[in-house]
Every structure is written in structure tokens, then in C-alpha cells.
């Protein structure tokens, strides 16, 4: 029966099989049932895989080829899921930088190097970048890889941004060396990259990147609401401040966005308890605090441990009393001596 269903019977076998079926109606019914299913299944059409699938597979393969010292892997080894929100944000920026570098290497005047081939990660030693200016051979791709990259919507947007492109041409050797260690996985992350994330990432320096690696998902979500001014201010934050920052809620973030670099420096001396107290400040208090002038800052900086401890012991009532201070009172207090402020 199997051979009959497969259509592989010889003529002699076929005749014998027909005779058999005539004499065995039970087998005939079974055969017809199997034949029907076989014919039905043969009608099912084959589907074409999506056009992007082959490229997607090859990118996955290239990711496997990366060595163990990439920035991406330093990030990934901190958490089981490498594309968790905690690190994804960083990867988006890293991907943007890689792509931009590739585009520059191909399209700017110093590019006519026909020997370029290989993969993004498989580049030469860092000392090759002594010139401090990117050249065609620095980051290279095969033609098919380049074509795929250029079709990417985000890449097209980046290329169209002349200001950004001009800025990137000034990348120094250190930045280029760092690029060599980027993980190819970042390319995949590009799909979800938006313009705001690119712009924000451009302002981050290596110190900020290191600090950001310690942030959790909540902090990342909060950071995503920051504007360029806040990002610049945050670049002055050191590792000690990170745990305190992680405790900030949306309200505090909004308040922080109005602060300048100097205020951020002052905030770096605050501990978690103080941060908690700050979070209880309402808009009026924030507004009052914003009236503190340059003269008051040195006074505040002169507070000793005892005074700080006293401030930290303020109860809700006292906090409420402080909230009732108006701008005029604040102004008058600012005219007092620093020590009077403490008292």
C-alpha cells in the first residue's frame, strides 16, 4: 500500500495491487483514505521565507564569532538576558556609533580603499588609529553587509543629519579604538533605535557609560525621560551617586532637569537618606531652592557633619515649616552669614 501511495509501483505490482483491492474492500477503503490525505497534503503550497531572514541569520552567526573582550560582552555578562531593557539602551547608542562609523568610512573623501573587507568586529589593532581621524580601512564591511546597513531606516536618518556627521568626523583615536571592541549584536538592536536615543547617546562619555552599566531598569526608564541638558549634568555624576540616583522618582527627575552642573556637584555629597528627604519637597520648595544664589552655595558647602546630621533629623513637621518659607524669607536668609544659615 505504501508503494501505491508513493506511486512507486511497477506495472506488474500495480495490477496485482488492483486485484487485491477488488477482493479486499476493507483495504480499498483504507487505501482511499490514505490516498485522499496524501493528495490533500500535496496541495499545500510552499511558503517563501521573509526577505530579511537570511541576513538576520548571518548576523546571528557573526555575533557568535566575536571575541570575549567586546564592550557588548562586558555588558551582557552582567545579566542573563543580553537584550533586557537595562542594557538595551546602551546597545542602541553603541549600534548607532558603529553604523555611523561604517557610513563615514564608505562615503567620505578618504574612502577609496578597495581592499576593505571583513566584519565590523574583525578590525586591526588600536595603534593603527594614531592619526585620530577615521579612514576607510578603520571599520569595514563586505558589499552585501553594507547594502543591508544602508537600507536601514535609522542609518538613512543618521546620514541625512549633516551636523551629526560632521561632528563624528572629529572622533579621536580613543573613540575609534573603543569602536573596535563593540559587539555585532548591537546592529540588531538598531531596529528599535529612535532619534532621541541617538542624540542622547552622542553626549555620553566613557565615564558615563561605565556608570550607566550599574543602573537598573527603573533608573534606565527614568533616564530615558532626560533631555540633553540633564544628560550633560549627569556626566558629572560619580559612581558614589549612582545608588542615590536609583532611588529618584519621576518628580525628582523633573526637578533635577532644572539644575545646572554646579548644583549637581553639590548633590553628589548627599546620602540616600538626604535624597529621601529631597523627594518629599513640593514644587514650592523646589522653586524656593532655585532662588539660592552663588553666595549661599559656599555656605551650604561649609556645613559640618553635625549640621548635616541635624538636617537629616528634621521631622515632617519641620519639613512642612520649611515648605512655608516664601521667596522673600529665603532672600533675607541669603543675606545672613554662612554660619547663621546653619544655625
Amino acid at each position: 500500500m505504501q508503494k501505491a501511495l508513493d506511486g512507486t509501483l511497477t506495472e506488474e505490482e500495480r495490477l496485482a495491487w488492483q486485484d487485491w483491492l477488488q477482493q479486499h474492500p476493507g483495504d480499498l477503503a483504507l487505501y482511499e483514505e490514505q490516498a485522499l490525505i496524501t493528495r490533500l497534503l500535496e496541495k499545500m503550497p510552499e511558503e517563501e521565507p521573509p526577505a530579511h531572514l537570511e541576513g538576520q541569520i548571518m548576523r546571528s552567526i557573526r555575533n557568535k564569532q566575536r571575541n570575549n573582550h567586546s564592550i557588548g560582552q562586558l555588558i551582557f555578562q552582567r545579566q542573563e538576558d543580553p537584550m533586557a531593557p537595562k542594557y538595551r539602551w546602551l546597545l542602541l547608542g553603541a549600534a548607532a556609533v558603529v553604523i555611523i562609523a561604517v557610513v563615514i568610512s564608505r562615503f567620505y573623501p578618504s574612502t577609496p580603499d578597495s581592499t576593505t573587507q571583513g566584519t565590523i568586529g574583525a578590525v586591526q589593532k588600536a595603534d593603527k588609529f594614531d592619526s585620530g581621524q577615521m579612514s576607510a580601512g578603520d571599520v569595514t564591511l563586505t558589499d552585501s553587509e553594507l547594502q543591508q546597513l544602508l537600507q536601514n531606516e535609522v542609518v538613512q536618518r543618521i546620514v541625512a543629519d549633516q551636523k551629526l556627521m560632521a561632528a563624528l568626523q572629529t572622533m579621536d583615536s580613543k573613540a575609534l579604538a573603543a569602536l573596535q571592541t563593540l559587539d555585532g549584536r548591537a546592529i540588531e538592536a538598531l531596529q528599535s533605535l529612535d532619534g532621541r536615543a541617538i542624540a542622547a547617546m552622542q553626549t555620553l562619555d566613557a565615564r558615563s557609560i561605565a556608570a550607566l552599566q550599574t543602573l537598573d531598569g527603573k533608573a534606565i526608564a527614568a533616564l530615558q525621560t532626560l533631555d540633553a541638558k540633564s544628560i550633560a549634568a549627569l556626566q558629572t555624576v560619580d559612581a558614589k551617586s549612582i545608588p542615590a540616583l536609583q532611588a529618584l522618582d519621576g518628580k525628582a527627575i523633573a526637578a533635577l532637569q532644572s539644575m545646572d552642573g554646579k548644583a549637581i556637584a553639590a548633590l553628589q555629597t548627599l546620602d540616600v537618606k538626604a535624597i529621601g528627604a529631597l523627594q518629599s519637597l513640593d514644587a514650592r520648595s523646589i522653586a524656593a531652592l532655585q532662588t539660592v544664589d552663588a553666595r549661599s552655595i559656599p555656605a551650604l558647602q561649609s556645613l559640618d557633619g553635625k549640621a548635616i546630621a541635624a538636617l537629616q533629623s528634621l521631622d515632617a513637621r519641620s519639613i512642612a515649616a520649611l515648605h512655608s518659607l516664601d521667596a522673600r524669607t529665603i532672600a533675607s536668609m541669603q543675606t545672613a552669614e554662612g554660619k547663621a544659615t546653619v544655625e
Partner: protein
Amino acid sequence: MIELQEAELVSRCRNGDDRAFAELVSCYQKPVYNLALRITRSGALAEEVTQSTFVKVYERFGSFKTGLSLFSWIYRIAMNEAINEYRRGKRRSSLDETRIMSAAEPSFELAEAIQEALMQLKPDDRALIVLRHFQNLGYREIAVIMDRSESRIKSQLFRARSSLKIILARLGVTNEE
């Protein structure tokens, strides 16, 4: 792909030739995708399965024995990946955004019913049906892929088709019209 070409391709892949691996992907991605699509009934899952299959092929090239068929070896990985993916229960019961059949095709309703019936088979039986009737593989090849004897494959296939017939009848499909 003839054996000589296949052996050469395997050798180049083992030597880390990216282009050779790209050739291999290009050659096998369609059957692997279709195998996964029929087993998972989801375009998104089929993509995932196809991708993970080739990543595993890449990772395991060292364990591939040259005497075996590359085709069968890849199919075995793909089939296991697809069945595992299906068993993980991702979007098991409904069609996703990726169509299984084009509505423009005349036999759309029938094909849809067949796919529905296939999904009611045990994953193992479904894989067998797919390998035999969608991928048109021989019994010997299927036996290698599923690591069973040819005779067992034939009898299992027979039973799987009978089950499919019963399910189709339940779905109201009694003939080819």
C-alpha cells in the same frame, strides 16, 4: 546538492569560511523555514526556529560526521528546534500575523483546514507528515532525521495520516473539494 559539493561546503564551513556558511544558509533556509512553519503554524516562530537552527548548525559543525547527509543533519536540528519551540507553548492555539496561506489561492479554506488538522496531531506525527509530504523526503532520509527505523517511520506515517483524516472529517473536510 550533490555529495561532492556538499562535502566541499562542509569543509569550507569548518575552516571558518563565512561565505560558505552563507551559501549553506541560502541553500537550506527555505526548506527549514517551511518545516518550522508547518510545525509551529506561526511565521514569527518559524523565523526564530530557522535562525536558531542555523546558529546551532554553526556551533555544532565540529560534531557533524562527514559520512552523514548534511541535509538530514540540518533537518534533524530544525525539526527538534521546531518541536521544542512548539512545546514551549508560544502562541500555540492561534494564527499570528503571518499568513500560512494566501487568501488569493483557490484552495485557501481547504489548506487552512489541513493546517488546522495538522496542529491537532502530536508534534512528532506532525513533523513526520511535514517531512514526508511537504518536504518530499524519502523514508530512509526521514529515518535518519528522526533516528528511527524505516519500517517504524512507515507505520507511524500511516497512523498519522489516519489520525489526520479523522480530524479533517471532524473539521468538515470529507473530500478534496
